[in-house]
């Protein structure tokens, strides 16, 4: 096999994964103005797009900036709203008033000291949950406020934020933007056959429309089918349904009662007896869905749970919402980059949307491919190995973190929750962390890889939110009490100021639609 430069990138599949990856590579390598690298996206004119998750991470802001997309345009075109984290309701005890937040901001003073142990020992006197005591974002979310004002520049804000978006509209928007602004070539055709080189690399794709597409690197964004990596290269799928039991979803679009109804600026995740309901507020509707374990609940009961959550006045109305059923296979491919083919999106794997990990994994993959695009075929194998190591680690971390939400629950109202606490269902790596935290408060030092997906703060929010207690020893040096008090007081001060100052989420969205945000 000759060593040749990698210049022709072929992305197969036109969902959000395909367009984000194509756009990210094209932007990085200036395909609009230079011929050096060519990015072609081929998609079937006939395959419907599965809109994965409507929740994003704050990384989406830098992704949009890298793609040269204006925040105002994005918000207008994609029915988008602001997301400031997630509210987990009824996960710990299942009672009506049981909730905690996983906000998108670090605890106050996080870089200077760990407030966790101080909070744990004084929580009864403080009378405030961890997420509320150390971060002002929960209060903003509870008050239905936006993370910024109309005077903030695009992508700037008072509080850190991500977005909720309409995945279908986002894909349409990217389709146009990537072609018009970033120089991605678009081919509508159905891939029918794959022609290989002697070493097994993909040489070209044959299509039903009789177009042959040659390439040096192929990105598999074909969704659950995993046409290239799974079907062609036969890379096995590693299920994790022994850890995460969710295998079904029922999704509906729920209209707002009124055009002026408030929009939640966080994802609401409400635990049920065999899974949980997501509730995401877009501009014109809410996206609501129930993900559950079919081993623990019948389909009829699941429908009933969702219907009762949506709580419409009239029974017939629920069926008019045309609930959509989706079968979920939790897990990921054994590796993600094989020969000259790398999978991004559902073709690489899927996990329940509890922490909105789908789009962020696409962004992380697209970033690594774009920024470390192999210079030539020889070095590609090295990059592939590094990519596989990085993403195997990341998938495992996400699986651990999702499981953490379940395995600490005190709910005892169903087999689903009891099974989730079974020691054998908890991965070894998570066991290890939980054992460590038995005696050491969770801290930044527990996570030292460059490839962490969730910072230590995220673990703290979930652990303390779920009522986890470290057996703290008096001799352990925690944090200076003065410092801790000062930080909590500072958070309190900023919290009350911002609750007065920030506009309602709906109000800001209306203003952005009317006046737009300024670039600076």
């Amino acid at each position, binding site marked *: 096999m000759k060593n040749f430069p990698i210049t022709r990138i072929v992305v197969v599949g036109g969902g959000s994964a395909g367009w984000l990856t194509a756009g990210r590579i094209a932007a990085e390598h200036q395909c609009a103005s230079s011929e050096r690298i060519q990015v072609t996206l081929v998609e079937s004119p006939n395959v419907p797009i599965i809109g994965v998750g409507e929740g994003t991470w704050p990384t989406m802001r830098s992704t949009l900036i890298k793609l040269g997309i204006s925040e105002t345009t994005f918000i207008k075109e994609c029915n988008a709203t602001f997301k400031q984290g997630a509210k987990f309701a009824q996960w710990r005890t299942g009672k009506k008033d049981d909730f905690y937040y996983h906000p998108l901001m670090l605890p106050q003073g996080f870089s200077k000291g760990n407030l966790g142990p101080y909070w744990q020992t004084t929580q009864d006197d403080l009378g405030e949950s961890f997420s509320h005591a150390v971060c002002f974002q929960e209060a903003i979310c509870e008050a239905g406020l936006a993370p910024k*004002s*109309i*005077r*903030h*520049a695009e992508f700037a804000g008072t509080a850190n934020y991500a977005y909720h978006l309409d995945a279908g509209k986002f894909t349409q928007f990217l389709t146009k933007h990537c072609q018009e602004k970033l120089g991605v070539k678009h081919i509508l055709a159905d891939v029918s056959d794959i022609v290989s080189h002697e070493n097994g690399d993909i040489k070209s794709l044959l299509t039903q429309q009789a177009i042959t597409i040659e390439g040096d690197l192929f990105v598999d964004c074909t969704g659950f089918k995993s046409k290239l990596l799974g079907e062609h290269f036969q890379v096995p799928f590693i299920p994790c349904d022994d850890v995460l039991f969710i295998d079904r979803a029922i999704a509906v679009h729920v209209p707002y009662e009124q055009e002026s109804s408030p929009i939640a600026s966080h994802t609401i995740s409400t635990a049920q007896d065999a899974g949980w309901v997501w509730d995401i507020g877009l501009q014109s509707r809410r996206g609501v869905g129930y993900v559950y374990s079919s081993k623990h609940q019948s389909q009829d009961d699941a429908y009933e749970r969702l219907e009762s959550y949506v709580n419409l006045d009239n029974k017939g109305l629920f069926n008019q919402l045309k609930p959509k059923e989706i079968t979920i296979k939790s897990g990921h491919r054994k590796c993600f980059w094989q020969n000259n083919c790398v999978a991004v999106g559902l073709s690489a794997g899927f996990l329940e949307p509890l922490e909105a990990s789908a789009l962020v994994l696409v962004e992380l993959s697209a970033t690594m491919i774009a920024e470390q695009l192999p210079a030539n075929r020889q070095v590609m194998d090295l990059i592939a190995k590094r990519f596989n190591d990085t993403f195997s680690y990341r998938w495992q971390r996400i699986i651990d973190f999702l499981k953490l939400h379940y395995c600490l629950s005190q709910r005892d109202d169903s087999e689903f929750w009891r099974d989730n606490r079974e020691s054998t269902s908890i991965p070894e790596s998570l066991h290890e962390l939980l054992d460590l935290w038995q005696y050491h408060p969770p801290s930044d030092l527990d996570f030292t890889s460059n490839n962490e997906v969730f910072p230590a703060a995220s673990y703290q929010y979930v652990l303390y939110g779920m009522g986890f207690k470290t057996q703290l020893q008096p001799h352990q040096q925690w944090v200076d009490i003065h410092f801790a008090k000062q930080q909590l007081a500072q958070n309190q001060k900023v919290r009350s100021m911002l609750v007065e100052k920030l506009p309602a989420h709906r109000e800001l969205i209306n*203003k952005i639609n*009317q*006046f*737009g*945000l*300024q*670039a*600076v």
Partner: protein
Amino acid sequence: MTNMVAINNQHHANLRITEHAHTQGANQHLVPIVTSEINKLIVHYPVVLTKFDDTGKFGLSALLGFEEGENLFWQQGRWEAVYVPAQIDRLPFFIGSEQQSDTVNHVLCVDMDNAAVNESEGSALFDNTGEPTAFLAEKQQILAQLLDGESQNQMFIETLQSLNLITPITLDITFENGANTSITGLYTVDEEKLGALSANAITRLHTEGWLQTIYTLAASNAQIYALIDKKNKAIKQGDAWFEN
């Protein structure tokens, strides 16, 4: 409070305006301006861009002080400057709009609640024959300038935006008494980007008549130092007051 009334030479034949009309601006730290007065403004004032609270859109202002309510040009009950911004100088007059079928008519109004409005002292609005006085004519001219300035301002700002020439300025100032202040929310012209504009863009700005305005606005930044100096003097005066 304002109480706007349309002016006519019968009802308001005896109306007079004292020199206290500018008092309304005594506590403003920013005053909106129009591009046509920038050449005069730079004699004293830093001209900046700021965002409107309710829309986030850019507007042009003269900077008068470093905190809410501080007008360093307001001294001993009067506006201490050779040139007073048009938006202040027109007081207590306003332009009202009257919708008539599909056209909008502009009418000259006066704020009857402004303490400067009376019937015994100050400049008269009309002469004995009911003709506007030179005083009123001058105010009318200022109001016309302001009205005209609205669309001019918008065109100017859109031009700056189209060339990405707006940049935030953050002022970290330590006054002579050691007090620190950090001021955000002010914007100006990005001189680096201005210097890097293509010949085509410069020609366009020149043809549209904005080139000089842009450079004048950028140059007005130097007046920030004069304003700091004013503040320091005000602090000293305050100290002197307590020492005596």
